[in-house]
């Protein structure tokens, strides 16, 4: 029986391999047809409407203006995006244009020579339209490594109806905030919804506390040399997290809940406040439009006697870089111009997001909270970048881990400051070895 079947085997194998080869060959054959047009590959992270639709519309307008160019738009979800981009760039297969958050992650790609310097392609008029605070997070010296499109600011969001019914005014400073938290806890209301599974929402509390106490200049000095992290004021900022937690500010599972869960607690009226970026507005508009009437916001509480009460914590949520391997950089830059055009960014604002540019006309369709956010951004003395976007990736992860530890009582403020300084020193010695 076996013998009869055996002669068939080589035929099957040959057919299998031939089939594979023909598939590979046919893939190659289709290539020249595409190459008649200049093709740009564009990766971004807007996977749902309205923002996805706004990007698609901008790309269509660009293609209409440049008939010889075809853009392959690849929307990728936020979480796997970092992984995919790193693998693609590491393997020398970077997309021509790609999304970045600016700050340290972009600087890492710039240092590796993976992104192009766009300064030579940008005219003064275009530059003047972009927010300088956002541009600063995409530049190194004179070189511009990305064009910012969307910014975020972190504020204290509150349920106006709930606070009114409890007779609690929106907090202005840290001590009145603490009083409100204690009172709300007695009333069996979750004072502040926190979704700290990934560590960054808790980091907002720490970053803001330190900024409020030290002011921009002093904080920058520490951020630039994190080996000096064992500082009394840093310890005090960690201490503020502990104080909030001990006062019962957060729901029970704050370190396991994600941003999705925390905003559900807030949108459904189970919690009175939350500390979150301006993007919460877009989520509310889409997921719970009925809650918009109760939704209000104010600045993060001030710290008595602090030097940084005018600072706003925020950063670039979306900027676009051109990879150094892109063959048609000048055309790619034209797409960036369309992505940051008045038309694109007006639609962006109407979706409840903050554009990284000055608009000629205020958007008519934006919700009232958008104007409050814009006011906070415009009136800020300075924009401080989220610390985890300022640190090199390894320290950013340690930063978020230590905040989780302090909040769950696993680490003292002093211990956290020491552990972070140690990690910074370890990284320094490893980088020194690389150089």
């Amino acid at each position, binding site marked *: 029986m076996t013998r009869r079947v*055996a002669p068939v085997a080589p035929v099957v194998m040959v057919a299998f391999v031939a089939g594979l080869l023909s598939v590979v060959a046919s893939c190659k054959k289709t290539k020249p047809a595409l190459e008649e047009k200049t093709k740009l590959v564009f990766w971004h992270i807007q996977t749902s409407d309205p923002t996805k639709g706004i990007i698609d519309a901008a790309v269509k307008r660009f293609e209409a203006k440049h008939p010889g160019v075809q853009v392959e738009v690849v929307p990728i979800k936020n979480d796997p995006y970092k992984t995919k981009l790193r693998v693609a760039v590491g393997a020398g297969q970077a997309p021509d244009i790609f999304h970045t958050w600016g700050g340290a992650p972009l600087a890492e790609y710039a240092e590796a020579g993976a992104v192009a310097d766009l300064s030579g392609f940008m005219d003064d008029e275009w530059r003047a339209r972009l927010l300088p605070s956002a541009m600063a997070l995409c530049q190194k010296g004179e070189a511009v490594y990305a064009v910012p499109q969307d910014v975020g600011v972190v504020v204290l969001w509150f349920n106006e109806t709930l606070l009114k019914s409890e007779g609690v005014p929106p907090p202005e400073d840290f001590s009145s905030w603490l009083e409100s938290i204690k009172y709300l806890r007695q009333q069996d209301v979750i004072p502040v919804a926190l979704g700290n599974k990934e560590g960054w929402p808790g980091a907002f509390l720490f970053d803001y506390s330190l900024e409020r106490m030290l002011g921009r200049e002093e904080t920058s000095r520490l951020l630039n040399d994190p080996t000096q992290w064992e500082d009394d004021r840093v310890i005090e900022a960690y201490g503020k997290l502990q104080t909030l937690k001990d006062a019962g500010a957060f729901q029970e599972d704050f370190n396991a809940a994600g941003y999705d869960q925390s905003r559900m607690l807030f949108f459904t009226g189970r919690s009175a406040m939350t500390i979150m970026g301006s993007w919460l507005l877009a989520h509310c508009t889409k997921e719970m439009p009925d809650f918009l009437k109760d939704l209000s916001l104010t600045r993060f509480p001030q710290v008595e006697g602090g030097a940084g009460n005018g600072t706003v914590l925020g950063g670039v949520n979306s900027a676009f870089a051109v990879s150094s391997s892109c063959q048609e950089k000048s055309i790619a830059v034209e797409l960036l111009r369309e992505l940051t055009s008045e038309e694109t960014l007006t639609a962006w604002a109407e979706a409840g997001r903050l554009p990284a540019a000055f608009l000629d006309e205020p958007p008519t369709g934006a919700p009232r909270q958008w104007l409050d956010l814009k006011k906070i951004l415009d009136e800020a003395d300075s924009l401080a970048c989220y610390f985890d976007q300022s640190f090199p990736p390894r320290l950013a992860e340690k930063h978020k881990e230590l905040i989780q530890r302090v909040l*769950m009582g696993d680490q003292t403020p002093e211990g956290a400051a020491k552990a972070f300084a140690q990690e910074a020193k370890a990284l320094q010695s490893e980088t020194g070895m690389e150089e």
Partner: protein
Amino acid sequence: MKTRSLYCVPALLFFLPFLLFPLVDCLGLSRFVWDGITQDKVFVGLGHYRALWLDPVMRSSLGHNALLILFSLLFQLSLAFLLALFVSKLSRGARLMKGALLTPLMLSPVACGLLWGDLLDPHLGPIQTGLRGLGILSRPQGWLSDPGWSLFWIFIAISWRHVGFHVLLMLAGLERIPRQTEEAARVDGAGRLGVTFHITLPLMGKTVALCGLLSVVGSLKYFDLVYAMTRGGPAHATELVATYAYKLAFDQSRMGYACAAFSVLFGLTFGAGVLYRLLRGRSG
């Protein structure tokens, strides 16, 4: 002989580029400090393995993997055995039972992780709301954010997903046991427990060993469900070697160090497989 080896070609076409090459590449990269982006790599030899040995997070992650293995072997397999016995004795509804037990396996591990995260939510999840309604819990509990309990809940979620698969394997094992043996034991006066422990269990040795191997290898490699459910947190409390290595590579930009961690994981999994073969070989 030549024709026979040709049969391996399709498997090799898959194995060489997608498994062997990345594995060798991973081992090679583990000797370098590399951020995953630049072309510059600094040779450190076995330095990363020494660092891993001293790394407290790697040690605790290995501990968590070991606990998962222990729990899986002790509780998950015992439960699967009991369920298989129960299902095999059912005169009606056995197919329905098998279907129900296998349903969780149809869900993707990520969906399972997110589902269990929602189920355990202290305010919005049905488990705690129900327990509070019955008066068993007085206050919402942060089960997943409590480092003492979070790994336990992860184990519950993993068992929920996989127990049905082991039940099916064991049912197949049970069916292979000749009825006469059990009946003969009964005639000789063996009770129900006696038959289970002295006849059924020993005759299912190979099936149980296979389930054991799958549990050990599965617990070592576990990633997706845990990553979706807790991301290895809070503060590494549910970190496994796979989630830690992933974070090292893609969150911390330490690709070389991560490759060393992945290589250790591969070594352990491979070792488990070899040990299984040796033990099986010895038992005949």
